[in-house]
C-alpha cells in the first residue's frame, strides 16, 4: 500500500516537474552514457550541483525523499538515479531489478549543521566528534543501527540539566535518521544523543522536509540540523558545518535490463537476487533456502523447474547430481554451474512402527549393494534407451503377504515411469527385497510430497523417492541405512540457438513424444478411466445424497433441518483438496479402502451438499399455489410433492445442476494428492519425463473437454426428458 502510494507520488512529481520519461531501453555500460539521460536525485542534494557539470547533457529530475529514487528508476520514470552509497547498501535488496554502474560524482563529506552564531556549540561538538570517531564504539554503533536496530538504544539525556538542544531532522533516511516505534532514532541521532549527554544537555527533535532544514536552522528555530547533510559552499554561506563525520560515495543505479551484463551466474553466490527453482520436499529445497538473498521457487516436479528455466521464469535450478545426467539428456539447453553441493545421505523410508521390517531391510541392503545386479542397475537405468525391466517374480513363492511401496516416480533413474510402469534403481532394489522376505510387492505412485504422510499413516510399508535423510524427516519416519549420497547441482540455461524446425513440425514431434513414445497414451487412458469413474460415481452418489438432504431440509424436523444446514455449511466452506486429504489421511487412515473410493466418497459428500442447495432453491421457487391446488384436489402432502412439485423443481434445477457437475469433473484433478492416478496426474508424469509443458497440458485439456462434453450431453438429454410432453389428442 505504502509503496503504491509512493509510486503514485513519484509519478505525479515527475509529471509536475515537466520532465518526460523515456522508454528507451538502450544499453548503458558506464557513466558517460548518463549524458543525455534523465537522472533522478534528491532535491537539495549536492548531486544537483555536480551532475550538470560532469554530465552536461543529462536532465536532472528531483524527488523529495531519497527512497523515491529507486522507485522512479524501477518504473522507468527516469533512466538512472543517484543515491548515497550508504543508503543504497541498505535498501538495494528491495530492488532486485536495479544495479549499480560506475559514475564520476565525487564522494561528499557529511556533517552536522550549526547556526553561525553558535560557534561555541560547534567547537564542543567537533571536539566530541573527534574523540568519538576514533573510538571502537563508533563502528559498533554504525553496525548496530544498520543490521540490528531493534537492540539499539539512544543515550539517556532526561536528567541532563544544561538546557535543551533543538535538532532539525528529516527522519526519513534509514539507518541514519528514521522513525521507530514513533521515535526518531538512527546513527546521527545516536551521535547527537551521545554528544548531548557529554555536555549535560537534553535534546528535542523537530522533523521536517530535507529542504526546510537549513532555513529552519538559520532562522534560529533550531540549534543543530542533520540528516545526511553534505558540506557545500552554498550551504556554508548560511550555516556552519561541523567536521565531516563520514564520506559519502555516490551510487548510480539503473535497471538491470539496460546493462549489458553477460553470464551473470558463475557460482552459487551469483544466485543472490535471482530466482532459483527447486522441487518441493527435496533436499534441494532445504538447501536453496540457505543460499543467501536468492528467491526460491518451489515446484511440484523437477521437470517443472526445467520448463520454468527454459521459459526464463527462473534463473537457475537446483537438482540432484544423481538425476542430472538423465535430465540433461532430455533438456539440452542447460549447463551445470557447480556440482557436489551439500552432500546428503539417501535412504529408504519406513513407518516408525515397523522397526522389524527396517532391520530386515538394512540387512538385505548391505548385501544387495555388493551384487552385480545393483551395479548394472545403476548404469542401465541411467540410459533412457535401456531395455532393462523390473524383475518379475512368481506370486507362488510369496507366502508372507503384500509389501506396499510408495514411490514418487519423477526422478529418473531412481524412480520413474516407463511404458506405464514404475521402474528405477530404487523400485528394483525393493522388489528384490520383497522377494527375499517372501512378500508380494505392490507399487503405489504419488506426488513426492505425499510420500512421507503416506508411509507415516501406514498406507505403505516402504517409501522411496530418492529421499535424503534429514533430522526433520526422521521425526515422522524411519530411514534405512543410507545407500548412497546425493549432492546438488546448480543448473542454468545455456541459451543455445533453437532448432529451425517449423512450428507444426515441432508440435507434431512434441505430440508424438508426449503421447506415443513409451506408450504414454496408456498413462492418459488409465488416468481417463479413473477421472471418469470418480466423476460419474460421485455425481450419482452425490445427487442421491443431495436429494435426501434437500428432502430433510424441506420436510424434516428441526433437529434434522439444523444438522443438515450445518453439514451443508461445513461442506461449502471446506476446500475440496483439504476434505480429500482429511478423508484419506484421517478418516480412512486405517481402513483398507482404495484411494479411488476415498476420492469418490469425498467428492460425493461435497456434491451432495452443493446440489442439495440447488434442489432446495428450485423447489422453493415453485409457487405455493401449486402445492395448495394439489392438496385441495385431495392429494396427500407427500403425493403432492412427488407428483406435482418435484417434476417442476427438477426442471428448474437441471441447468444449474449441469454447471455443478462440470465443476465436479474439474475438481477431480486434485486426486493426485491422495495417490489416485487421474488424467491430470498422467499429464504431470509425462511432463516429468519429456520436460515439455505444452503438449501434455494440451492433451490433458482436450481429454477434460471430452469428459465434460460427455456429461453435458447426458444432462442435456435429461433436461429434454424433464420438459413436459405435449400429448396429442384427436378431437372428437
Amino acid at each position, binding site marked *: 500500500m505504502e509503496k503504491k502510494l509512493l509510486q503514485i507520488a513519484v509519478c505525479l512529481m515527475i509529471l509536475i516537474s515537466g520532465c518526460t520519461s523515456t522508454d528507451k531501453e538502450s544499453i548503458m555500460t558506464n557513466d558517460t552514457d548518463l549524458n543525455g539521460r534523465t537522472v533522478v536525485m534528491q532535491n537539495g542534494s549536492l548531486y544537483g550541483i555536480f551532475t550538470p557539470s560532469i554530465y552536461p547533457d543529462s536532465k536532472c529530475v528531483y524527488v523529495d525523499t531519497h527512497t523515491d529514487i529507486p522507485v522512479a528508476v524501477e518504473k522507468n520514470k527516469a533512466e538512472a538515479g543517484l543515491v548515497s552509497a550508504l543508503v543504497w547498501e541498505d535498501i538495494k535488496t528491495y530492488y532486485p531489478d536495479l544495479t549499480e554502474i560506475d559514475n564520476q560524482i565525487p564522494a561528499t563529506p557529511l556533517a552536522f549543521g550549526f547556526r553561525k552564531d553558535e560557534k561555541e556549540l560547534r567547537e564542543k561538538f567537533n571536539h566530541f566528534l573527534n574523540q568519538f570517531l576514533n573510538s571502537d564504539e563508533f563502528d559498533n554503533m554504525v553496525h548496530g543501527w544498520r543490521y540490528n536496530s531493534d537492540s539499539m538504544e539512544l543515550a539517556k539525556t532526561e536528567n541532563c540539566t544544561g538546557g535543551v538542544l533543538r535538532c532539525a531532522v528529516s527522519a526519513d533516511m534509514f539507518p541514519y535518521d528514521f522513525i521507530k516505534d514513533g521515535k526518531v532514532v538512527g546513527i546521527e541521532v545516536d551521535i547527537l544523543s551521545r554528544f548531548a549527554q557529554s555536555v549535560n544537555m537534553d535534546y528535542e527533535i523537530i522533523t521536517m522536509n530535507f529542504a526546510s532544514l537549513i532555513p529552519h536552522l538559520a532562522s534560529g528555530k533550531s540549534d543543530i540540523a542533520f540528516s545526511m547533510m553534505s558540506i557545500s559552499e552554498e550551504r556554508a554561506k548560511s550555516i556552519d558545518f561541523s567536521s565531516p563525520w563520514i564520506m559519502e560515495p555516490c551510487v548510480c543505479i539503473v535497471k538491470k535490463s539496460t546493462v549489458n551484463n553477460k553470464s551473470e551466474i558463475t557460482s552459487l553466490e551469483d544466485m543472490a537476487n535471482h530466482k532459483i527453482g527447486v522441487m518441493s520436499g527435496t533436499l534441494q529445497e532445504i538447501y536453496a533456502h540457505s543460499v543467501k538473498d536468492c528467491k526460491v521457487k518451489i515446484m511440484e516436479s523437477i521437470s517443472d523447474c526445467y520448463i520454468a528455466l527454459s521459459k526464463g521464469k527462473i534463473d537457475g535450478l537446483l537438482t540432484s547430481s544423481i538425476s542430472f545426467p538423465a535430465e540433461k539428456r532430455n533438456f539440452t539447453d542447460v549447463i551445470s554451474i557447480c556440482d557436489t553441493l551439500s552432500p546428503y545421505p539417501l535412504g529408504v523410508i519406513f513407518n516408525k512402527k515397523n522397526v522389524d521390517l527396517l532391520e530386515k531391510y538394512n540387512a538385505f541392503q548391505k548385501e544387495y549393494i555388493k551384487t552385480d545386479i545393483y551395479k548394472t542397475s545403476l548404469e542401465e537405468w541411467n540410459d533412457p534407451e535401456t531395455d532393462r525391466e523390473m524383475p518379475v517374480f512368481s506370486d507362488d513363492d510369496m507366502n508372507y503377504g503384500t509389501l506396499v511401496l510408495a514411490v514418487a516416480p519423477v526422478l529418473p533413474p531412481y524412480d520413474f515411469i516407463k511404458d506405464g510402469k514404475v521402474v528405477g534403481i530404487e523400485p528394483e532394489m525393493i522388489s528384490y527385497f520383497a522377494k527375499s522376505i517372501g512378500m508380494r510387492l505392490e507399487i503405489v505412485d504419488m506426488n513426492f510430497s505425499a510420500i512421507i504422510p503416506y508411509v507415516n499413516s501406514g498406507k505403505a510399508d516402504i517409501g522411496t523417492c530418492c529421499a535424503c535423510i534429514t533430522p526433520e524427516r526422521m521425526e515422522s519416519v524411519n530411514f534405512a541405512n543410507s545407500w548412497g549420497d546425493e549432492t546438488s547441482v546448480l543448473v542454468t540455461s545455456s541459451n543455445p540457438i533453437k532448432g529451425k524446425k517449423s512450428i507444426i513440425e515441432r508440435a507434431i514431434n512434441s505430440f508424438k513424444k508426449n503421447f506415443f513414445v513409451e506408450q504414454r497414451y496408456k498413462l492418459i487412458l488409465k488416468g481417463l478411466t479413473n477421472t471418469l469413474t470418480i466423476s460419474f460415481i460421485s455425481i450419482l452418489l452425490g445427487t442421491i445424497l443431495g436429494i435426501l438432504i434437500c428432502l430433510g431440509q424441506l420436510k424434516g424436523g428441526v433437529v434434522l433441518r439444523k444438522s443438515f444446514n450445518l453439514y451443508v455449511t461445513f461442506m461449502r466452506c471446506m476446500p475440496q483438496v483439504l476434505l480429500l486429504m482429511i478423508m484419506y489421511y484421517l478418516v480412512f487412515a486405517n481402513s483398507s479402502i482404495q484411494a479411488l473410493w476415498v476420492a469418490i466418497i469425498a467428492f460425493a459428500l461435497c456434491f451432495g451438499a452443493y446440489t442439495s442447495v440447488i434442489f432446495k432453491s428450485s423447489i422453493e421457487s415453485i*409457487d405455493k*399455489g401449486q402445492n395448495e391446488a394439489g*392438496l385441495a*384436489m385431495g392429494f396427500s402432502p407427500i403425493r403432492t410433492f412427488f407428483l406435482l412439485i418435484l417434476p*417442476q423443481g427438477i426442471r428448474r434445477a437441471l441447468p444449474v445442476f449441469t454447471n455443478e457437475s462440470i465443476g465436479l469433473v474439474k475438481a477431480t484433478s486434485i486426486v493426485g494428492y491422495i495417490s489416485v492416478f487421474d488424467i491430470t496426474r498422467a499429464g504431470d508424469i509425462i511432463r516429468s519425463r519429456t520436460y515439455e509443458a505444452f503438449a501434455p497440458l494440451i492433451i490433458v485439456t482436450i481429454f477434460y473437454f471430452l469428459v465434460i462434453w460427455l456429461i453435458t450431453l447426458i444432462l442435456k438429454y435429461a433436461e429434454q426428458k424433464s420438459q*413436459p*410432453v405435449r*400429448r396429442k389428442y384427436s378431437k372428437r
Partner: protein
Amino acid sequence: MIHIEHLTKRYGNSEILKDVNAVVNKGDIISIIGPSGTGKSTLLRCINMLEHPTSGKIIINGVDVTDPKSNISMIRKKVGMVFQSYNLFDHLSVIDNLMIGPIKLLGMSAADAEKRALLLLSQVGMLERVEAFPSELSGGQKQRVAIARTLSMNPDIVLLDEPTSALDPHSVSEVLSVIRDIAKNGITMMIVTHEMKFAKNVSNRIFYLDQGVIYEEGSPEQIFYNPQKELTRNFINRTHNFEYHISDHSFDNYGLISKVIAFCIHYGFKGSQIDRICHIVEETVNLCFLSESGNRNDIIRTDGGIDILISYSEERDLTDYYIYAPERLETIINNDADKERLSKSIIGGISQNYKESVQSGKIELYIKVGPYDASPYH
C-alpha cells in the same frame, strides 16, 4: 351439508374470523360478499383446511374436518376449490390437468378419465386448447380450465375463491358465464366475489361478512334491496367516483377521455355504456366553452375552471354525471352558440334525464345515465 360452528381464526394478534356460524344446505349457491380484509377467503380456505382454524368446528357430510384424526385428503376429494390465481399444474397440459386427479385419486382408467375430461372441457368451451400448456392460455382460459379441473373430481361442493379478481374485464364475463352454467346443474357452491351483479343474479343466499362474523345473511333481494343492518346498507349503497378538473380551454382532452374509459372499464361497463359516458363528457365540456365571442373561456379561466364528477353505484347499477361551471357562464346548455342544438340533442338522446341548477355559486348540470337493459345478467 356443511355446518360451521363458532369458527375463529387468528393470525398473531389480529382476529380475522371472530365467531362464524353457518349452515350450508345441499344445492345452495352462496355468495360471500363484504369489504376487503374481512376474512372472506380465510373462511373459504378454512372449510377445506388449507387454513387451520384457531377454534370452532366445521362439519362436512357429518365429518368434523378440524379433528386431526379425520382424513382430510378424503374429504378434500369431495370439496373442490377454484383459486383466484388458477393454480393449474404448470408442467401438465390442459387435458393432463384434468386427468391426473381422476386417475391418481379416483382410480379411473386413463380412457375414462380422458373421455370425462373432454366432456368437461367442452362444457367450459376449452375443447380447442386440449393440448395447450397453462403458460399458453389467457387468464380467463386458465380459470375455465381450473373450473373444469375442479369438476373432474366430481365434487359435492365447489368453493370459488374470488375466481374473477385476477382477470381483465373482458375475461370476467366469460368465466362468470361458465360459473352460472355450472350453478344451473344443481351443484352446491360457495363463492367469494366482488361481482355484485353476479352475486345478485346467481345465488340463492348471500353472506355479508364483516367484523369477523356473518354480519347479515339473506336472500339476494333482502341483502341488495332491503338490507336490515347499517354496515350492509353502507356497503350496498357505496358509490365509486371519478373526478376531473379543467382549468381552461387548453386542457388535455385525450387524457380526460382515456381516464374516463379506464374508470368505466374498471367497473365493468359495457362498450356501449362507455361510449355514452364519453359522449356526455365531450359534449358537456364542449358546451361550456362554446361561444361566438370566445369570452366564456376567459370566464372559466378566471373563475376557477370546470369540475367533472362521475358517480357510479355498482349495486344499483346507476351512473350519475355532474359538471360544475362558473356562475357567470349563466348556462351550460348554451342555446345561443349551439345553434343547431346538436350537443343538446346528443345529451338528451343518451341520458334518462338532465337538470341544470345553480348551487353555491356554481352552475350544476346533472345527467342521469342508466341503468341499462343491455346488462348481460338481466
